[in-house]
């Protein structure tokens, strides 16, 4: 019975998040109804513009469940986009080899960070802070100018629409039927999300991650390989960062130094809002998905409102993050009593 109370607490945090999202969305439909907020495409756009973030938040959730954190993700995304753009446009490498190279670099980046964190036991924050500056600096070393992607295959990946005919189309002035659509990047993001969910919930590796995050000492005494688990989590996270960066690049089709600044904050905020505990041991990737959607909704609000500057997104996200952190902290205190 004791266990049940604990589960209820976890579900409660997730419920708050889902309720918050639904409330915000309904509020949006009421306020901005005249501007077409209720259209299915507006909802689908949440996924389209945040496909990269969904993948990265999934990786971040895994890292945070082990009790660690990764603040290098934003810079790694910038590095990934820049590498992709540079390889395709300057070096003339095909889209597929460029993508593979980037993914390998992501894995390698995760491997190095994971080694320092798991085997040398340096605080994850310090290691990934260094990683953050390293990746951003490397981006500047590759090119300080913006590189636009003109590779045909890449643009084909980016622009091929998947029409969702069952949602019903609208006929525009020229008589062409427009259906609500998704890009392939969304499909990739959702597949990754499901894979991570299954891995966390139903595999031995996934359960080990929870055990390590819950109590490292106990996990070690149970005979679990704590170091290797942590290393693997950072490697997977590195891979997901590169993949997320690729999806991000499909949206922007360019690489530049200032890209994806503050992305780490969005990913961490999404995970925290979705009910992942900063202390580790508790977390759910679907919660993080809702975290991402909430962030997307705030952005949509700001776009629809029209007069607010984009800085408000960051400030609102920070305020939400602070709110949810306080909520978690109160929960932890209540549990102690």
């Amino acid at each position, binding site marked *: 019975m004791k266990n049940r109370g604990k589960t209820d607490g976890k579900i409660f945090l997730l419920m708050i998040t889902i309720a918050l999202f639904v409330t915000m969305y309904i509020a949006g439909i009421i306020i901005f109804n005249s501007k077409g907020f209720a259209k299915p495409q507006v909802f689908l756009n949440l996924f389209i513009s945040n496909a990269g973030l969904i993948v990265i938040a999934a990786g971040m959730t895994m890292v945070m469940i082990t009790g660690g*954190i990764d*603040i290098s993700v934003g810079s790694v995304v910038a590095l990934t986009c820049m590498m992709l753009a540079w390889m395709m446009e300057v070096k003339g490498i095909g889209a597929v080899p460029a993508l593979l190279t980037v993914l390998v670099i992501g894995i390698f980046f995760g491997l190095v960070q994971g080694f320092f964190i798991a085997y040398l*036991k340096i605080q994850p924050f310090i290691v990934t802070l*260094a990683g953050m500056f390293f990746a951003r*600096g490397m981006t500047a070393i590759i090119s300080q100018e913006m590189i636009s992607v003109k590779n045909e295959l890449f643009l084909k990946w980016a622009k091929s629409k998947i029409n969702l005919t069952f949602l019903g189309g609208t006929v525009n002035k020229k008589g062409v039927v427009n259906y609500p659509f998704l890009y392939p990047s969304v499909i990739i993001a959702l597949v990754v999300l499901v894979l991570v969910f299954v891995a966390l919930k139903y595999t031995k590796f996934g359960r080990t991650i929870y055990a390590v995050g819950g109590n490292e000492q106990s996990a070690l005494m149970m005979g679990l390989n704590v170091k290797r688990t942590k290393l693997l989590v950072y490697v997977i996270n590195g891979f997901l960062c590169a993949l997320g960066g690729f999806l991000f690049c499909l949206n922007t089709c360019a690489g530049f130094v200032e890209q994806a600044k503050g992305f780490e904050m969005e990913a961490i905020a999404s995970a925290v809002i979705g009910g992942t505990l900063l202390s580790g041991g508790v977390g759910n990737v679907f919660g993080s998905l809702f975290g991402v959607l909430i962030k997307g909704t705030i952005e949509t609000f700001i776009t629809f409102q029209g007069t607010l500057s984009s800085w408000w997104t*960051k*400030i609102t996200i920070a305020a939400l993050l602070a709110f949810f952190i*306080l909520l978690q902290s109160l929960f932890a205190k209540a549990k102690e009593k």
Partner: protein
Amino acid sequence: MNKLIVFVKKLTGTRLFLPLFCLVLVLLSNLIKTPTFFQVTIKNGVLYGYIIDVINRASDLVILSVGMTMVVAASGGTDISVGAVMSVAGAVCCYILAGGLQTVNEFQNPYILGVLAAVFAGMLCGCFNGFLVAKMKIQPMVATLILFTAGRGMAQLITRGQITYIRVESYKMLGASIPGIPVPTPVFVALLVVILTYVLLKKTTLGLYIQTVGINSRASRLMGIKSSRIIFLSYVFCGLCAGVSGLVASSRIYSADANNIGLNLELDAILAVALGGNSLGGGKFSLLGSVIGAYTIQALSTTLYAMGVSPDQIPVYKAIVVVIIVALQSTELKKMAKRYQTGREVGKKVA
């Protein structure tokens, strides 16, 4: 004379020897490419030269690293919001002095009001961080991450997304120099902050308390020290330092550039603390070490600039230095090295 010998002995002690050695190494390495590195000339009544530039430019960082040292020592975590807090302080100061206008040629409000407001804004940010860390028991880096991202946004809102210029001679003094005095003003500001902090730590029990809390906050709480209050105060102090540093940085460019004031300085400050021989895990600390560390970083930056590396690319080298220092501090690495060594010795014996 006796005191001098003691001082020299203190300097050659293991704790400060490494940071000093690094500083000298970086400075001397410049001689290879720029033989005039140590040359000092006087232009318009102000000292000029690479070495003066290092000392001058390092001032912001010295002030920051003093605050950072307190935070690291007391809480075993770092405050990554300092750069953003600097830009908030600069924006607040310029906003008040310009009275909401974008460019002014004379103060719209008294100078002292702007300065006090900026320092107060810094302390307020510190209070927010301190509250989250000390009272809410949130990991320092996550807590300060909030302001790290939101801080520049707030500064942008204050300046309305534009750069506020204060074209007043007396405003430039803090970041440049006071007429008649050949040494740049920031050097004095940094010196003042360091001396005041040093006196505060040595003449009161605060320094001891901070170390005690950093080594074991639970034990010190049981001993009757209010651990959470000490940690809270350390963050407020760090915010104050960031505020002062932001003022100097804003005065240098006589404007509030929310995007660029204090950019990437958080890493430099952490690096300065680590380079000064302080453990990032908290506990015992050396203020002087951090100060020397800060000068070393600036020397490194100036060296890289002199070699033609662009400001965007410099973080790469600094990140590598951070990782090396932190790895060297790691006890696990020492254990590994030991295991490797004994393994080899055993291997020899078997052979």
